[in-house]
């Protein structure tokens, strides 16, 4: 990358993050070590459900190198982990205690914590702890009859209901009704780096530190401070490098609070690193839902109403997200379609499995699968093409903004802008759908089992309501953007640098972006729900604009020119016609230093805070098309062609957007064909290694054609950004199911994810 592009915004520049990462000088949680540190190892329940009778830690304590072994009694004062959105009396009794008290409710539940001088010894000691549990019957199916969670409480804490219109009337007037039973299997993010947390009490400053933080450091700081009864001013979180988040990393887990309490009480830093087996049974699961969905349509295939009743398998406890995932599913199910009447009831069920929460496109991966299967079924029932049935139901671009009387992520659903038909047309043209269909017919005649699939979906991003950033120019000309954001590897620093650089008139490589540091900025929203680019980039732009204005105003005085006639090019301020003299931003910063004689009445420093507020989320949208071939001898599925068409409003860095879409696609493919957390009838987890939990490799992921469009910029922010982090994964379950179903004759036989070769072979052999 040599010449400066016309604008940093929209340029596929190389990332600022990469150099330390390719040279092995990254700093992930496992790389953080402090002198004299102890290692923590958890003792976890080997039973899915049971009464905890006794814990004998003495054999563990007796091992050389073991400093302490804690059970619930040792942390009696600690409250359970609070919900991220704040207290909720109805759901509160179902929160997970930091260490199990009288019951254990899933295999993997923390029962005790060992603190030792070395990780190997800590594991030896954890093995030596004797736990006496009276095994109780385990519930492993969400749709099973409810049972007792604890005295007076059942395993259905709540039912989420949303809807509008007259659903009974819609079905009464229907020309046709379609009903499907659909299941999405339990799976989750499974990042390459397992979780880690290092607690350290800096007695010299009276500051308690948590290293290895991620995703929402500021929010977690508040929560942890509250749990510990400590002022946030004396608690700081530090995010270094993070090996993937996908929603599962960064929530507060028992281990995070334990390392902090232990660091204070034991007077030494405490380091905890999760191993892979632990990760599979203790980090948040997701996705598992069972839907019974019905659609009422008129004679032309237009939706009159959708009625969906589903069971959401939450696992053993309600963790920090509360009912966020199930609520989101309820609020986003209609997707891009016009829907006059709607009713959805989500049974939020507890089972004796690892607790579930958000995983990339939470609630939407599931409902996209369910809704798009429904659209295919409607097409089949009425003898329409799968394309035609969608065209007849898509919300038109002239109907934007389109309000749905629904709530998702605590926000009213207002689809801000979108040309769904336009994107569909582009996608069909891009992959030459008609030709593909003709070829598929030919190949089927020749005995091949080929299928085409289609899925349309609306994503959400830019959850507000507000974010702020500070931009500061140093006297050497380097720019620092201090954000309350976070990075899980998505290129946050680069994107913020690009926006700031373009606004300020500097090279993006001169911009240093700070994130994940609660001690550098007081407020922050972290990075999740695909909001960082929308919220933080806009806030950075506001701050950078203020700094620009301040610089130009100072320069106007120094250059004896009108501020309006000045431009900033590569950090240098000069007249628009390029004539001398010029003054650099660094020199301006120098003139603005507190003791500068030229500063006048201006506030010291070439810096400014910027805030960006938004009323609503913004809604990017996509179309996915897949072509698959099934091996009839084995049932194996090969994805021959794949297209993702996604409108992001505005792409700050198209290369990074593409990276997000393709990366998300690979995960979505995993959920469609390979990944599943399986359990036996006693609640024993069976997918605890990477040899059982199968994730796609370079061989399973096909080449993906990506079409990024900017046809419908967001009306919710000046940059027009919509965010792409979850756009790749969201529709994959739907499109792969559609394609495989088509390959098998298009009779709606695919009703469950993941789709296994065995299931396909059974269908083929049965036909």
């Amino acid at each position, binding site marked *: 990358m040599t010449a400066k592009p016309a604008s940093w915004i929209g340029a596929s520049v190389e990332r600022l993050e990469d150099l330390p990462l390719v040279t092995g000088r990254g700093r992930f949680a496992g790389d953080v070590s402090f002198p004299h540190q102890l290692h923590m190892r958890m003792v976890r329940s080997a039973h899915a459900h049971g009464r905890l009778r006794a814990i004998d830690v003495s054999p563990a304590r007796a091992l050389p190198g073991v400093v302490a072994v804690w059970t619930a009694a040792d942390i009696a004062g600690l409250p359970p982990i609070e919900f991220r959105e704040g207290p909720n009396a109805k759901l509160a009794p179902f929160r997970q205690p930091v260490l199990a008290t009288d019951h254990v409710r899933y295999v993997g539940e923390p029962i005790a914590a060992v603190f030792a001088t070395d990780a190997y010894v800590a*594991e030896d000691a954890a093995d030596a702890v004797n736990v006496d549990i009276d095994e109780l019957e385990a519930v492993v199916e969400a749709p099973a009859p409810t049972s007792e969670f604890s005295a007076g409480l059942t395993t259905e804490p709540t039912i989420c209901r949303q809807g509008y219109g007259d659903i009974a009337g819609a079905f009464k007037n229907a020309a046709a009704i379609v009903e499907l039973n659909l299941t999405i299997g339990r799976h989750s993010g499974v990042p390459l780096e397992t979780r880690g947390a290092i607690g350290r009490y800096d007695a010299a400053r009276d500051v308690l530190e948590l290293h290895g933080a991620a995703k929402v450091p500021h929010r977690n700081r508040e929560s942890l401070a509250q749990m510990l009864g400590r002022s946030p001013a004396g608690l700081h979180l530090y995010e270094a490098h993070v090996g993937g988040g996908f929603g599962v990393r960064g929530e507060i887990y028992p281990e995070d609070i334990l390392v902090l309490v232990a660091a204070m009480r034991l007077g030494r830093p405490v380091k905890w690193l999760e191993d892979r087996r632990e990760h599979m049974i203790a980090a948040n699961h997701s996705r598992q839902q069972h839907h019974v969905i019905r659609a009422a349509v008129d004679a032309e295939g237009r939706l009159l109403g959708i009625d969906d009743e589903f069971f959401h398998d939450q696992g053993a406890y309600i963790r920090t997200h509360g009912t966020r995932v199930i609520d989101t599913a309820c609020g986003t199910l209609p997707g891009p379609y016009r829907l006059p009447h709607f009713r959805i009831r989500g049974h939020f069920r507890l089972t004796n499995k690892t607790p579930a929460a958000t995983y990339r496109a939470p609630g939407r991966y599931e409902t996209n699968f369910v809704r798009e299967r429904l659209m295919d079924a409607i097409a089949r029932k009425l003898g329409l093409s799968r394309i035609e049935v969608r065209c007849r139901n898509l919300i038109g671009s002239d109907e934007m903004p389109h309000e749905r009387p629904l709530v998702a992520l605590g926000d009213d659903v207002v689809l801000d802008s979108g040309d769904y038909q336009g994107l569909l047309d582009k996608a069909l043209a891009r992959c030459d759908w008609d030709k593909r269909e003709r070829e598929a017919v030919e190949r089927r005649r020749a005995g091949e089992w080929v299928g085409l699939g289609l899925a349309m979906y609306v994503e959400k991003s830019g959850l507000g309501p507000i974010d702020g950033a500070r931009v500061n120019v140093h006297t050497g000309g380097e720019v620092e953007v201090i954000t309350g954001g976070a990075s899980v590897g998505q290129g946050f620093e680069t994107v913020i640098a690009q926006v700031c650089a373009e606004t300020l008139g500097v090279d993006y490589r001169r911009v240093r972006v700070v994130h994940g540091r609660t001690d550098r900025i007081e407020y922050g929203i972290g990075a999740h729900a695909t909001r960082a680019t929308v919220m933080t980039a806009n806030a950075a732009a506001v701050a950078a604009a203020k700094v620009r204005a301040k610089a130009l105003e100072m320069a106007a005085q120094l250059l004896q020119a009108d501020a309006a006639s000045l431009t900033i090019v590569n950090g240098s301020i000069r007249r628009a016609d390029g004539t001398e003299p010029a003054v650099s931003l660094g020199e301006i910063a120098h003139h603005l230093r507190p003791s500068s004689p030229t500063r006048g009445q201006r506030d010291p420093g070439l810096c400014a805070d910027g805030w960006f507020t938004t009323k609503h989320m913004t809604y990017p949208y996509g179309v996915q098309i897949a072509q698959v071939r099934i091996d009839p001898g084995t049932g194996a599925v090969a994805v021959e062609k794949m297209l993702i068409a996604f409108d992001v409003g505005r792409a700050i860095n198209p290369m990074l957007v593409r990276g997000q879409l393709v990366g998300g696609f690979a995960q979505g493919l995993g959920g469609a064909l*390979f990944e599943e957390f399986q359990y036996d009838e006693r609640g024993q987890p069976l997918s605890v290694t990477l040899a059982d939990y*199968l994730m796609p490799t370079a061989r399973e992921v096909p080449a993906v054609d990506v079409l990024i469009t900017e046809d419908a910029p967001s009306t919710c922010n000046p940059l027009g950004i919509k965010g792409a982090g979850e756009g790749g994964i969201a529709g994959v379950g739907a499109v792969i199911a559609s394609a495989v179903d088509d390959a098998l004759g298009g009779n709606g036989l695919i009703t469950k994810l993941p789709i296994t070769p*065995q299931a396909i*072979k*059974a269908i083929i*052999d049965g036909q």
Partner: protein
Amino acid sequence: MKPARFSYHAPTSVEEAVALLAELGPQDGRILAGGQSLVPAMAFRLARPAHLIDINGIAELATLQATSALVSIGACVRHAAFESDALPGAAGALLRKVVENIAHYPIRTRGTFCGSVANADPASEWCCVVAALDGVVVVRRRQGTRRVAAAQFYQGVMTTALQEDELVVAVELPMLPQGTRTGFAEFSRRKGDFAIAMALVAYRLENQAMAEPRVAVGGAEPYARRLPQAEELLRGRAPGAEVFAAAAEAAAAAVDPMEDINNTAAYRRALVRTLTRRALEGAT
């Protein structure tokens, strides 16, 4: 997932190794060769050997030899050794075909042929080769050497005739007659994963008819074995689609497949049918 403590021994000769095994075998001593199966088991603490006898330093065990009659594969010969043209003839060609199905390249640089044979995982490709070719497992203990035919060596899932004080020093495979055609097909969820089923076939052509047919199936049952019911349908017949389909059908009928949460017996049976046919059709 750190292993439990063990005592580490690194003998430099086979004599030393079997002497150690004689003493430590009964005390929970295990042989460490490639480690690609043992070390993960130790990481999960499913295996907690009190003693590890590392044989990687024993030079004589690293030999791969071929004579006109047989191939002798020493205990420390890595999977990767079979990727090159090192071994001649039809046997070499077969091993080359099979090896690319074994795990992944970095596993193959360490894992050993004999280790796989001794481990006796039902999904082991080498075990299928040994069964198909009627290989011989050369076993050594302090008191001497014995040779165990494949059919006697495998007894169940990861269960063999190996005693706790015995070391597999080599496996011998017959050099297949010149002109022998061999075929191999396996199915797994992703390439390199444990095979759910596999089929290995071999035959010679004598006056256009198949002679000395071998059909072995692995991955589907507790251990790999030859299927005479399939072989007899090939013997004396000319190769062709119908003959192959019939043999595949017989193979499917002959197996008593394992069941697990992911794979029913019926599915494994269907795979055996498909893979046997494909191995036959693809034999070169």
